[in-house]
C-alpha cells in the first residue's frame, strides 16, 4: 500500500449539525460521501452506523433504537443494553451500536460503525472515503 493509498483511506470528518438537533434515541440519516449513515444520540452515547443491513440491505437506521432481552434462564425475560441496540425494521436482526456486531453471535454479520465527535455543541462523524473507482 502506497502513501497515497493510505492518505486516500483516511477518515473524512463530516459536520452533521448541532448537538441539540438530535432527539434522544432517534436516528438522523445523512449522505456522507457515497454512504448513507445514521447518527444518533442514545441513552448509551453517540453512535454512527451505516444505514444498510448486511442481511437484506434494509435501511437499518429506520429501525428502532432500543435495548433487548439479554440471554437469561428458561422462561426469564431480562431487559438490558438500553440505547445500545439497533433493531432492523425488516427482519428484526439486532446489532450492537458500540461494535456493529450481531448480538450474542446470532450470526456473523456486522454493520459498519463510525467515530462520532461532539465538540463545542457540534457533531462530527468520521467516515472513510470509498477506494478510488469504487461506488457503494
Amino acid at each position, binding site marked *: 500500500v502506497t502513501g497515497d493509498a493510505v492518505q486516500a483511506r483516511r477518515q473524512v470528518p463530516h459536520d452533521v449539525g448541532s448537538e441539540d438537533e438530535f432527539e434522544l434515541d432517534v436516528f438522523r440519516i445523512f449522505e456522507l460521501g457515497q454512504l448513507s449513515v445514521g447518527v444518533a444520540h442514545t441513552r448509551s452515547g453517540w453512535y454512527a452506523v451505516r444505514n444498510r443491513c448486511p442481511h437484506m440491505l434494509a435501511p437499518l437506521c429506520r429501525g428502532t433504537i432500543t435495548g433487548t*432481552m439479554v440471554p*437469561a434462564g428458561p422462561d426469564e425475560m431480562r431487559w438490558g443494553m438500553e440505547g445500545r441496540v439497533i433493531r432492523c425494521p425488516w*427482519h*428484526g436482526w439486532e446489532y450492537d451500536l458500540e461494535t456493529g456486531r*450481531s448480538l450474542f453471535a*446470532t450470526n456473523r454479520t456486522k454493520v459498519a460503525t463510525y467515530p462520532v465527535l461532539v465538540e463545542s455543541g457540534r457533531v462530527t462523524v468520521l467516515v472513510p472515503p470509498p477506494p478510488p473507482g469504487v461506488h457503494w
Partner: protein
Amino acid sequence: MLPQIGMSSVISLVFEGVFERFPKLKVAFIEYGFSWLLPLLWRMEREWRNFRFDTPWVKRSPREYVKEHMRFSTQPMDEPDRVQDLWQLIELLEGDEILMFSSDYPHYDNDNPLVTLNKLPDGTRERIAGTNAYEFFPL
C-alpha cells in the same frame, strides 16, 4: 406421518429452553427417519436470528443444541431414486455425528440391515451403524 411430530418436538425442545434447564438431557428420536431434519434446522437457524429476542434463553444456535443433545435413528430410511442423493443429505446433516442405525425389527416394514447399511456412504457407515449409539447411550 411421524416427521410432523418429530419436527414439532425438535422445535419445542430447543426453543422452550429444555436443554438450558437440563444441560445433561439427551433425546433420541426413534422411528422418525431423518430426511425432514435438514430443512427444519435451516429454518430454525433463520427464525432464531430473527426472533432470538422472544426466546432469550436460547443462547446458542439451534443446530448446536440438536448436535449436542439429540440423535435420530435411521429407520424408516427414505429411498430416493439415486442413492447418492441420500449420501449428500447425510453429509449436509452431519449424519456421521447424529444418526444411529435402526432396523425396526421385528416389524414387517423394517429396514433390513443387509440392504440398508449398504446404502450408507463408506466413510460414515461405521459411525451410523454403531459408534454413534455407543457414544450416545451410557453403555
